[in-house]
């Protein structure tokens, strides 16, 4: 045996080496690989049709349409008559050469898109002649179609899945379609359905040789669900028309359900701009417009001081905290002095001098002195200012202000309702009711969005509760059951205190600032507001034209609609916001409006000149003159 040792030895050693190598390959390297991700398995998707979107009355808002992409496989291209081909596709010859090269750079033997989303007529012509052009074929795609040119901000749009999303998702692959904005984004899962998967066996030539494991892993596509929105598209369209030439937002809510009836932002755009061949051009134009910001939803994202409408809430808190009652009165002498220094004085334009003002009149006449007085009473009710302030702050927040409301749209702003901590963190010195007195009249630190204010209005209309606003009424004809939208949220102000405030709001449209916007037969309750606003130009605070604001609900008994209207730089609440509100209410409740002259005036009113002016640097800044600084 001695002489055969060498061979036996080699056999054994090499046996060990080979088994070791197998161990390395199969256990260390390959042990946990997923068989489905193998190169030998190709997954093919079956995309279900995306769900349609309707408005609350069943009007079709979003549908699907076929679009035709011209595809190219560079390896097979054989075009005899390039000129004819180009004219069919409406491209130049240089374009043609450029596109072919681009496709070749991508892959010579794989299809890539040559011309995207061909117009229907072009497609018809091309289809007849396509057999002449080898290497090209047409691929059908489903794209969105918007029969009504409205509510772009609500509906959103769909977009191709980009690399980043695809990487972080276990569902999407690059180039698939995904809701990117608005309802399309929020209800992406419902709308898209679930794509079906087919696992196919593939050989070394990338050829399909059959189904992988007889379809063991295959799944069927699940159709997308149709959505019915709470939007009333007639009202939405009407509101958008009224807002032409203006910037701002209108939010209308049905108080008894929390359903959003209209969500208007101005300026907006035609949703059809985000589909079709010009999509990328349009998209750049819309998103690049930093001056008009058409893609910015002012109804949800616009943050404004609420102004006078906020006084109602302060009044209610005063009643709830029992620092005042219905008969409590304040005498106003053109304003309210909250300190000894000359400038520590808040002016008032209520026009009632020296006579006692009670809460009802204070609201309808918007008396600053009255609310400054009760604000101090609320805050100073407790010995510790911070306790009093937090109680006030929590009351305000119970109206849905100062935080995300939890509605079903993907964008929003918190706004700001300060609490004691907010001031303690920021002020080195002591602070109190007087230093925050602007909060009494809805200015100062307080920031709200139109939808928050509309919701708070609904809470007032409901006498102390609201449903979280929402945009989707039903999915596949089944009403939403999400308890977030079906269980009312109570305000911390009791129902018994609301009637007096509602009476006062009713007076606003009878005798107060809204009396010019009365609608025959409809008892509108509302409150106008005029909010000062500033901007910084070259580091200096510059006062701009006031925002015009109004909150309202109607009718007074059994309210059907509550809304908040913000018109940027619109001036007095009574001049723009009030007529727009009354027109909206009339349109919604009566279906039409009789006050044609007001309607016409509002439709034609444009604030563009004011907006343009803001873009220019005021003379005073250039000459270094003293600026008009906050007059309390």
């Amino acid at each position, binding site marked *: 045996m001695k002489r055969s040792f060498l061979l036996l030895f080699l056999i054994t050693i090499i046996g060990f080496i080979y088994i070791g190598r197998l161990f390395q*390959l199969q256990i260390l390297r390959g042990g946990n690989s997923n068989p489905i991700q193998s190169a*030998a398995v190709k997954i093919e998707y079956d995309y279900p049709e995306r769900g349609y979107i309707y408005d609350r009355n069943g009007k079709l808002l979003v549908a699907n349409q076929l679009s035709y992409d011209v595809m190219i496989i560079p390896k097979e291209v054989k075009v005899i008559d390039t000129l004819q081909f180009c004219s069919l596709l409406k491209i130049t010859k240089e374009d043609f050469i450029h596109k072919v090269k681009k496709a070749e750079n991508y892959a010579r033997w794989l299809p890539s898109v040559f011309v995207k989303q061909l117009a229907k007529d072009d497609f018809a012509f091309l289809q007849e002649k396509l057999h002449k052009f080898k290497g090209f074929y047409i691929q059908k795609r489903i794209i969105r179609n918007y029969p009504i040119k409205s509510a772009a901000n609500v509906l959103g749009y769909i977009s191709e899945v980009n690399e980043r999303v695809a990487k972080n998702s276990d569902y999407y692959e690059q180039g698939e379609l995904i809701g990117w904005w608005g309802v399309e984004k929020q209800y992406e899962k419902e709308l898209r359905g679930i794509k079906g998967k087919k696992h196919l*066996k593939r*050989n070394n030539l990338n050829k399909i040789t059959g189904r992988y494991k007889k379809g063991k892993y295959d799944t069927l596509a699940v159709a997308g669900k149709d959505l019915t929105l709470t939007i009333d598209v007639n009202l939405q369209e009407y509101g958008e028309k009224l807002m032409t030439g203006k910037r701002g937002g209108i939010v209308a809510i049905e108080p008894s359900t929390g359903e959003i009836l209209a969500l208007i932002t101005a300026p907006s755009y035609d949703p059809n701009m985000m589909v079709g061949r010009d999509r990328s051009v349009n998209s750049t134009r819309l998103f690049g417009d930093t001056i008009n910001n058409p893609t910015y939803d002012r109804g949800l994202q616009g943050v404004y001081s609420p102004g006078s409408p906020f006084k109602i809430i302060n009044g209610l808190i005063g009643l709830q905290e029992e620092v005042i009652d219905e008969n409590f009165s304040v005498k106003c002498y053109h304003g309210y002095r909250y300190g000894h220094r000359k400038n520590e004085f808040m002016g008032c334009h209520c026009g009632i001098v020296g006579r006692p003002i009670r809460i009802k009149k204070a609201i309808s006449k918007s008396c600053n002195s009255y609310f400054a007085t009760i604000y101090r009473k609320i805050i100073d009710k407790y010995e510790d200012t911070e306790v009093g302030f937090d109680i006030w702050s929590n009351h305000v927040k119970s109206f849905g202000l100062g935080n995300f409301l939890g509605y079903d749209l993907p964008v929003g702003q918190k706004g700001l309702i300060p609490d004691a901590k907010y001031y303690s963190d920021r002020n080195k010195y002591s602070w109190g009711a007087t230093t925050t007195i602007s909060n009494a009249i809805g200015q100062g630190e307080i920031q709200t969005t139109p939808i928050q204010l509309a919701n708070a209005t609904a809470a007032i209309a409901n006498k102390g509760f609201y449903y979280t606003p929402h945009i989707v009424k039903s999915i596949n004809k089944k009403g939403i059951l999400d308890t977030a939208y079906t269980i009312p949220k109570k305000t911390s102000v009791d129902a018994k205190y609301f009637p007096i405030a509602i009476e006062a709001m009713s007076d606003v449209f009878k005798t107060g600032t809204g009396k010019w916007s009365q609608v025959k037969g409809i008892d509108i309750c509302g409150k106008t507001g005029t909010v000062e606003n500033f901007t910084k130009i070259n580091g200096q605070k510059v006062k701009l034209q006031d925002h015009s604001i109004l909150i309202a609900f109607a009718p007074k008994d059994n309210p059907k609609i509550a809304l908040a209207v913000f018109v940027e730089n619109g001036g007095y609440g009574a001049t723009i916001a009030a007529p727009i509100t009354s027109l909206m209410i009339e349109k919604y409740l009566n279906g039409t409006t009789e006050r044609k002259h007001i309607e016409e005036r509002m439709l034609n009113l444009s604030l563009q000149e004011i907006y343009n002016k803001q873009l220019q640097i005021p003379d005073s800044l250039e000459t270094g003159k003293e600026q008009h600084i906050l007059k309390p």
Partner: protein
Amino acid sequence: MLILLYFVLVGFGWMNIYAASSTDTSQEIFDMSTKYGKQLLWISLSIPLIIFILFFNSKFYERFASLLYLISITSLIGLFLFGKNINGATSWYNFGGIGIQPSEFAKAFTALAVAKLMSDRQYNLKLMKNQIKAFIIIFTPAFFITLQPDPGSALIYLSFFFVLNREGLTLSYIILGFLAILLFLLTLFFGSKIILLVSFGLITIFILYGIYKNKQFLRFNGLRFLFIYGAVGLFILGVGFAYNNIFEQRHRDRFDVLLGRKVDTKNIGYNSYQSELTISSGGFLGKGYLQGDRTQGDFVPEQHTDYIFSTVGEEWGFLGSSVVIILFIFLLYRIIYLAEKHTNKFGRIYGYGIASILFFHVIVNIGMVIGLLPTVGIPLPFFSYGGSGLWGFTLLLFIFIRLDAHKKYDW
């Protein structure tokens, strides 16, 4: 025992050929248009062959070894006249659509001839004359096979060195050969200049060590050392020349890729790469018989022939492929064991010869499939598709079994 192993290996081999070459559309086992159908035919036909082999007296093989050897040499030469050129090599006779590859049979007959030569009682390997005789017998078929050209199959004849070593040839030939291969690879890898310096340095150190031990060392061996310097130098310089001028580009590419000398941009290592991936994907238990998606997808070229082991790797996993390796090891052990027990020198040498041949096939083939050795196109014994190959190995093994069965009655 050997017969059992034979049938296990052949049977398992066929199952894997079936897996590697079957498609969903044709499920008929005896379909002669398919690879696995043909292989099954070959396997069935090997049974009469076995009976035929066993029918002859063991003395017959000893007596007619030279004749059989001459016949096979003739058939190899005949290829240049009547052979059929497939894939650039004239290795086949074509008999009505059935290809016969004489080089597969030549192995067995060469082994017989070597055994016959060396079993002569007068034969002493220490003599240069006898060594040369043996070399001539071994390298004549290798020479003709290289001319086909099928250098992979010719390489197999190197395995006879094990036999010669067993029968008394000093280890120095194997060591020399091994050193040459090592030098060859190192030269390719590091370049001839560095290796020239290093090897000269090593030789010089060795000589200095000799002189240090024994002052007379150089005087007796001076000329010999000059010769060594010259031979090594020429060899190293020759590597570059042979590599660039005698080797074909495809051979060069294989070495380059394996040694990492070039980045594999042209998919030269495609076979090895796919084969490794396929084996890796098997994991511990494998994907199950006929469930190997990479096998079904034909990702590994030549998977039913030279790369059949990758099918085993994918479908049977680490467990299955280790078992196959162990089976081969066991087979080789068994053959060597039986050969050593032979009292008859002829049987012993023949047994040792076939063990070496099988061993060589197995290490080169599996080494290639698992990416440890460069691509050399030789089949895996009993596994790979191909009638000639299967019959060749059957012949090889069963002549030994016949000899083995006889030994008890021998002297």
